């Protein structure tokens, strides 16, 4: 690849200012103020290395994949398929063909619900989720429940936002066919004990799906060591392009599962009487895929690997501690989600202002946060809040971002306090 940028090599100590320079958008202003981007849990910004990789595909090497009998098509196919190897190594999968490209984690979960769910779950079978799931890991199971008569069970959490393991275990039984849980809450920041969850689910013969959307950006993941059956995440939260997501599934499961969508690229042969399916991974990838986006995701993983997830995690944890301390000094501020084991996300309430008013006011100070229900309405009900304001960290976040947030909350107090 001949892009003008390279993935950064490990910097010791973690030089966040140098890292910020890799992200062109961080140099811009918002309302004439330096941008304090604290919404990476919704979607992360992109380093130059990713932007260049995507541009490079379009400028030098774009054609459809798996079809063309000419040099450019062969070259771009190699880069596209090579991304599977990068992802395999990144998450510790055994085979590249266990990496299925989707649009995003939502599509990955829907693929599992449609394919695995329709083929292997029957009336009365149970799917266990938790109270802190994103809508993407709730609604597909409700749709399957309405279609097939499966039973959806919800494991409760504490007021601090931790899964109550004893209650979770009580939900497991011979009818449990799938446990689908988030590895990290997008609202509370809680990191779930998924090793324990997987162990207990497997003990009753259930398969386990891990929603790794948030977790994958913050700490190393090894799907074989975890032993999970499915692992899903989105590219855009991992500093890659939007429109590309990943479904990891164990080979034997993916082989047993029927296709999700029909069309080109997923077939072996087609006649009007009968069609046969392509082998993994293409069985699950009908139609022209997100070619440049997949290659961009590969570049994003190269970039993250260059920094090292352990170094990223250490930096973010230090900043999370700083942010927590600073925010708790704001009058009337209450943090929602106080599990001891949490990462990179702080949801909070001010007792005198609504999250939407907070977000609008601090936007004018250049601070970007998310306000609302964060696609987790059942969790909002559980925590008894209509909405929260959420500041979330990325590998490029720094203390100045936090200071800008805290200062801008002073403006909110001026209006509403």
């Amino acid at each position, binding site marked *: 690849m001949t892009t003008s940028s390279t993935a950064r090599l490990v910097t010791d100590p973690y030089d966040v200012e140098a890292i910020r320079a890799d992200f062109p958008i961080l140099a811009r202003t918002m309302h004439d103020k330096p941008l304090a981007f604290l919404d990476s849990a919704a979607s992360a910004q992109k380093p130059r290395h990713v932007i260049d990789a995507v541009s490079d595909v379009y400028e030098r090497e774009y054609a459809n994949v798996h079809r063309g009998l000419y040099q450019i098509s062969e070259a771009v196919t190699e880069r596209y398929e090579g991304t599977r190897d990068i992802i395999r190594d990144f998450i510790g999968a055994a085979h590249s063909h266990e990496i299925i490209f989707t649009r995003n984690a939502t599509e990955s979960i829907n693929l599992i619900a449609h394919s695995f769910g329709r083929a292997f779950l029957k009336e009365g079978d149970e799917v266990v989720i938790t109270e802190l799931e994103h809508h993407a890991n709730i609604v597909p199971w409700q749709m399957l429940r309405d279609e097939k008569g499966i039973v959806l069970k919800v494991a409760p959490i504490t007021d601090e936002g931790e899964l109550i393991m004893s209650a979770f275990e009580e939900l497991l039984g011979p009818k449990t066919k799938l446990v689908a849980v988030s590895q990290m809450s997008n609202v509370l920041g809680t990191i779930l004990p998924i090793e324990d969850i997987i162990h207990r689910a497997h003990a009753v013969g259930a398969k386990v799906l891990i929603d790794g959307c948030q977790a994958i950006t913050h700490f190393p993941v090894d799907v074989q060591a975890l032993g999970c059956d499915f692992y899903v995440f989105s590219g855009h939260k991992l500093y890659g392009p939007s429109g590309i997501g990943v479904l990891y599934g164990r080979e034997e499961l993916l082989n047993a599962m029927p296709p999700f969508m029909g069309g080109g690229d997923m077939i072996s042969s087609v006649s009007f009487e009968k069609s046969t399916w392509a082998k993994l991974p293409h069985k699950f990838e009908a139609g022209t895929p997100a070619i440049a986006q997949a290659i961009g995701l590969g570049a994003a993983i190269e970039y993250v690997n260059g920094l090292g997830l352990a170094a990223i995690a250490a930096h973010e944890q230090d900043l999370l501690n700083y942010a927590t301390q600073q925010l708790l000094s704001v009058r009337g501020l209450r943090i929602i989600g106080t599990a001891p084991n949490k990462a990179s996300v702080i949801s909070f309430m001010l007792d005198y202002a609504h999250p939407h008013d907070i977000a*609008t006011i601090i936007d004018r100070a250049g601070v970007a946060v998310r306000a609302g229900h964060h696609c987790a*309405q059942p969790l909002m009900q559980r925590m008894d809040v209509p909405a929260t304001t959420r500041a979330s960290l990325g590998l490029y976040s720094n203390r100045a971002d936090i200071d800008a947030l805290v200062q801008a909350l002073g403006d909110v107090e001026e209006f509403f306090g």
Partner: protein
Amino acid sequence: MSDDLRELYQEVILDHGKNPRNFHASDDATNEARGNNPLCGDQLVIYIKLDADGKIADASFLGKGCAISMASASMMTDLLKGRSAEEAQHMFEAFHHMCTGEGENVELDEDVEKLKVLSGVREFPTRVKCATLPWHTLVAALKGENEISTE
């Protein structure tokens, strides 16, 4: 702090937001509807009591929301009393135009002019629905619909 923020959060809005008028349920409402803003999860219920002549005898609301939606609902319910459903519809159109610049520029009577303090939302496109949610819910209630959602 920016001027458009001061324009948006005027004293009168902050006052209505903190101390909303007509903030209660109603046992004898003839019309009621629930309004949802799926973007933010804000919800409110509007209660309307129409008298025998079809005039609004009482209007109240309950709900959780931001300062803008609470102030808008508070001011709206204050202004509705004694007006016909037709007049209320006319007020909705005038208010909608004021907040979005869309539709016809409807003449406002003196009372409705008070709503102009909410027109600052025009500079905040993501907040327009906060101001208009109570009004959309009102229109639904008057039409006999039970629930609306701003998309």
